[in-house]
């Protein structure tokens, strides 16, 4: 069991440069991860913007007379 646990903490790379290089595939792996992170974070930024717009307009003009 301790062996199995330590294997989850042991990196496959000998040094950080090798980790970043990923053989010759680092040029493809890292930009892809960055694009995914930016896309998902961007989606939430747009959602937050939409929420702020909604709050600032209060969204209740039509309902004012009904109250």
């Amino acid at each position, binding site marked *: 069991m301790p062996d199995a646990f330590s*294997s*989850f903490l*042991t*990196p*496959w790379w000998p040094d950080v440069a090798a*980790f970043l290089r*990923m*053989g*010759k*595939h*680092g040029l*493809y*792996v890292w*930009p*892809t*991860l960055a*694009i*995914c992170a930016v*896309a*998902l974070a961007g*989606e*939430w930024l747009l*959602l937050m913007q*939409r*929420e702020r717009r*909604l709050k600032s307009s*209060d*969204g*209740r*003009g*039509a*309902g004012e007379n*009904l*109250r």
Partner: protein
Amino acid sequence: MFSRLIFYFASPMRLHALAGRLVRPLLWLALALALPGLWLALVVTPADAVQGEGYRLLYVHVPAAWMSMFVYLLMAFWSFVGLVWHTRASAMLAHALAPTGAVFALLSLVTGAFWGQPMWGTWWVWDARLSSSLLLFFLYLGYLALLRANEDSARADRACAVLALLGAVNLPVIYFSVRWWNTLHQGASLSPGKASMAPEMLTALLLMIGAAWAYTAATAFKRVQLIIAEREAQARWLQQLQDDLNQSDDGGAALPAADLEASRA
């Protein structure tokens, strides 16, 4: 049981309250799954014997591709429910899912291209899997364009629902394309009952897929809250909720008011 749940949350007020409760826990769940998933994917799992280190793109490409299809399936389902039973919340849920599905469809294409270049020597090829995935992305764009083009929300709901249902025909084509035709794209890494990968790779992949699910659910619930707030601006329950939010510095304190309204309904 399931149909009772659907009709219970067909009320925008109940759906709004449910979404408000679920967004944060789902976001935390996505993070809790993504962090160990990325750790296993990038740090622990060894290189693939054939594809080298570049295979690690699998951990983002597969979840993105799966979510692009599952989200469309969910959209088609809610569209069907909305068309048949005229439940307003169904259309809102489908609209809330569409942008996230479009993001995942685009990510599926982009991550696939970044995988294709080192493995196949090309960013793009017009084979069945890639072409049908591109069609799925265009279906999402068409859905969103149709939604924006219609001023009348009821008309937009119907038009989008019909497009979602028609476009669902493309889903089995995407899934079975690697079996039906001779494609450059490799076969499925995961299929019911079997996985063609080492256990630690499978664990990493399942964690990333779980994170993508939780992210999608959180994002869709957040968006459906906004859609409800935009469409139901005149509703008293929503105005009461906004008053509660304005009076309280702590947004969480307003939730019981929503629950109270829901229990009154």
